[in-house]
C-alpha cells in the first residue's frame, strides 16, 4: 500500500467513531481456526457454540468444514488443512496407532447408561435375529469398518454368544441402511439417528431394534472427541485453551437447553434436519470432560479386536484442556 493511501486510511478510520474502531480492532485480533466436523447431532456443542458467539467471545473465528461422510477429516487434519477435527474415538485411536500425532483436546460425547442411545442394531422382525449367536455367517451393515459403530457391534456379537470373526460386516452409508435391511441385502444393521426412528416409522411391520450395542457393551462409553496435532498444540497452547473454553460453553448451553424448541431450531440450522424430526430421537450424552479410563477401555477393546497394535496409554493422549472443568 502506498504511503499517502495508508495515511488516508488511518486518517479516515480515526475519524470514524470509537465504536466502529473498537469493532475493527476486535475483529483483527480474532484468531482464525479451521475445524473439520460432521454436521450431525453429536457436533451440537461446537456448531451451536459458534452460532451463539461463544468462540468469538474467546477471540476465535471458526471456519468449519463439514464433511458429511467424515472419512476425509483425520487425513486432512494430519495434512494441516484443519487445526481441529471431530472424530469418533476408535478412528482417532486407529490413526494415532498408525503414527499420526494427534491428541484429544476436548471431550465430545458418550453413550448413555442404557438404550435407547444414538445407534441401534436393527433386524427384520421375521429374520430370527435376536442375539449375536443368530448372526454367525450373516451380513451386518456398518457405516465404516474399524470405527466406533463397528467395534461396538462386534463386541455385542461376541458378548451375546456369537463370533464377530464369523460375521460379514458390510459398509453401507447410514441413509441407505434400512432399505438394505428391508430388501434382504443384510441381516442386521447398526443404524444411527435420525435414520433409526424414520426407519421404524416407515417399516414398523418389518424391522425392529434388537439391541443398543453402544450402551449394552459399554455403558456410558466414549463415542467421540475433538483432536488436534501435537505440533499445533505445542505451537498454539493458548488457542487450544480458548477453543476448549468456548467448546465447554457450547456444551454448557446444550446441556441446559437440549430438547427445547430453541435447541431443535439450533440443531436444524446446521444439520438441515427438519425440527420435528429431531423431536423424541435419542441423543448422545454431551461430556464436559474426558474420563481417561474410558479412552483406555477403548484402547484395550481395539487391542482385543486386533485393529490396534501400538501400546498406547490414554493418559499420554489427552491434553490437559480435555480434563479441565470450565465454569460460566
Amino acid at each position, binding site marked *: 500500500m502506498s504511503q499517502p493511501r495508508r495515511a488516508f486510511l488511518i486518517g479516515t478510520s480515526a475519524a470514524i467513531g470509537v465504536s466502529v474502531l473498537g469493532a475493527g480492532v476486535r475483529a483483527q485480533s480474532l484468531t482464525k481456526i479451521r475445524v473439520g466436523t460432521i454436521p450431525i447431532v453429536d457436533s451440537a456443542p461446537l456448531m451451536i457454540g459458534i452460532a451463539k458467539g461463544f468462540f468469538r467471545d474467546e477471540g476465535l473465528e471458526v471456519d468449519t468444514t463439514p464433511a458429511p461422510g467424515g472419512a476425509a477429516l483425520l487425513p486432512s487434519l494430519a495434512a494441516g*488443512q484443519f487445526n481441529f477435527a471431530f472424530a469418533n474415538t476408535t478412528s482417532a485411536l486407529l490413526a494415532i496407532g498408525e503414527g499420526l500425532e494427534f491428541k484429544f483436546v476436548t471431550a465430545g460425547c458418550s453413550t448413555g447408561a442404557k438404550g435407547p442411545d444414538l445407534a441401534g442394531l436393527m433386524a427384520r422382525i421375521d429374520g430370527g435375529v435376536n442375539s449375536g449367536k443368530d448372526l454367525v455367517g450373516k451380513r451386518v451393515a456398518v457405516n465404516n469398518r474399524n470405527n466406533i459403530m463397528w467395534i461396538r457391534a462386534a463386541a455385542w456379537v461376541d458378548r451375546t454368544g456369537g463370533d464377530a470373526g464369523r460375521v460379514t460386516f458390510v459398509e453401507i452409508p447410514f441413509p441407505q441402511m434400512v432399505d438394505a435391511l428391508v430388501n434382504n441385502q443384510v441381516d442386521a444393521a447398526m443404524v444411527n439417528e435420525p435414520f433409526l426412528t424414520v426407519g421404524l416409522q416407515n417399516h414398523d411391520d418389518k424391522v425392529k431394534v434388537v439391541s443398543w450395542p453402544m450402551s449394552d457393551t459399554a455403558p456410558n462409553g466414549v463415542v467421540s472427541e475433538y483432536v488436534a496435532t501435537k505440533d499445533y498444540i505445542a505451537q498454539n497452547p493458548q488457542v487450544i485453551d480458548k477453543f476448549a473454553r468456548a467448546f465447554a460453553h457450547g456444551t454448557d448451553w446444550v446441556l441446559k437447553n437440549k430438547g427445547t424448541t430453541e435447541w431443535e431450531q439450533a440443531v436444524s440450522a446446521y444439520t438441515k434436519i427438519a425440527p420435528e424430526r429431531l423431536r423424541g430421537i435419542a441423543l448422545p450424552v454431551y461430556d464436559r470432560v474426558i474420563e481417561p479410563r474410558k479412552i483406555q477401555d477403548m484402547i484395550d477393546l481395539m487391542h482385543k479386536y486386533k485393529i490396534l497394535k501400538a501400546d498406547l496409554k490414554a493418559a499420554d493422549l489427552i491434553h490437559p484442556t480435555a480434563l479441565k472443568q470450565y465454569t460460566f
Partner: protein
Amino acid sequence: MLARRSGLILIAVLLLSWEISSRSGLITSENWPPVSAILAGLVREALYGDLLQVIGATLSRFAVGYLIGISAGAIVGFIFALVPFLRRMLEPIIELVRPIPAPALIPPLVLFLGVDDLMKITIIAVTAFFPVAINTMQGASGVEPTYLAVARTFQTVPARVLMKIIVPNTLPYVLAGMRISLALALVVTVVSEMIAGASGVGYYLVLMQYAVRSADMYAAIFVIAALGYVLNSVFLAAERRLIFWYAPEP
C-alpha cells in the same frame, strides 16, 4: 421431430410410474419420495432456500476448472503435434495417468492442495485436460499431407499455413474433446464437492441425504441433469457455428 417427442413422452411415463410407485406404497422408502414432492422441494428451495447459491457455487467452480483444463489441453496437444520429440517423451506418462479415475486422485490432492477450491478446481481441470489434449494432438498431427505439400509449393508463410490449414483442420477435434470433457468435468465437480467443504451441489446432495430430506436431494440431482443437458445443447449450437464447414451426418 417425432423421435424427439417420443423421447419426451418416455421421460413423462417414467416420472409418472415413479410417482405412482411411491404414492401407492409399492416402494416404501425414505429414499424414494414421489416426483411431485421433489418438484415442490425444487421450487421451494430455489425460492426460499439456498439451492440457487448452491448451484452457483458448483457452476463457477466448474467453469474455472473447465476453462483451465481445456485451454491447457489444447495448448499441450498442439505442442505435442508440432514437436514430435516432446510427444514421444511425455506420451507414456499421459497414457498412464489418463485412465486413472479422477475421484481416485482426490485423496492425494487433499494432502497437497487441501479441501478448498484449489483442490476442486485442480481435479476438474485435470479431468477436462486429457480428452482435449489427446484429440488436439491427433487432429493437429493428422492434417492432410497434400494440403501441406500444396502450401509448400506456393511458398505460403508458416503463420498462414497454421491459420488456414492446421487450425481449421484441428478445430473439429478440439471441439469434440471439449464436449467429452464437459460431461466428465461436471461429474467430477459434484464428486469433489461431496468430499468436503460447505458449498456446491455435491455437498448439498450429501447434506440433504443425512438430513433425511431425500426429496431435496433429488431436486439437486434434477438440477444437475438439467444443467448437463443445457450445457451440452449450448455447446452443440456453438459448435455448429464455429465449424459450419465440418458437417457430420445429421
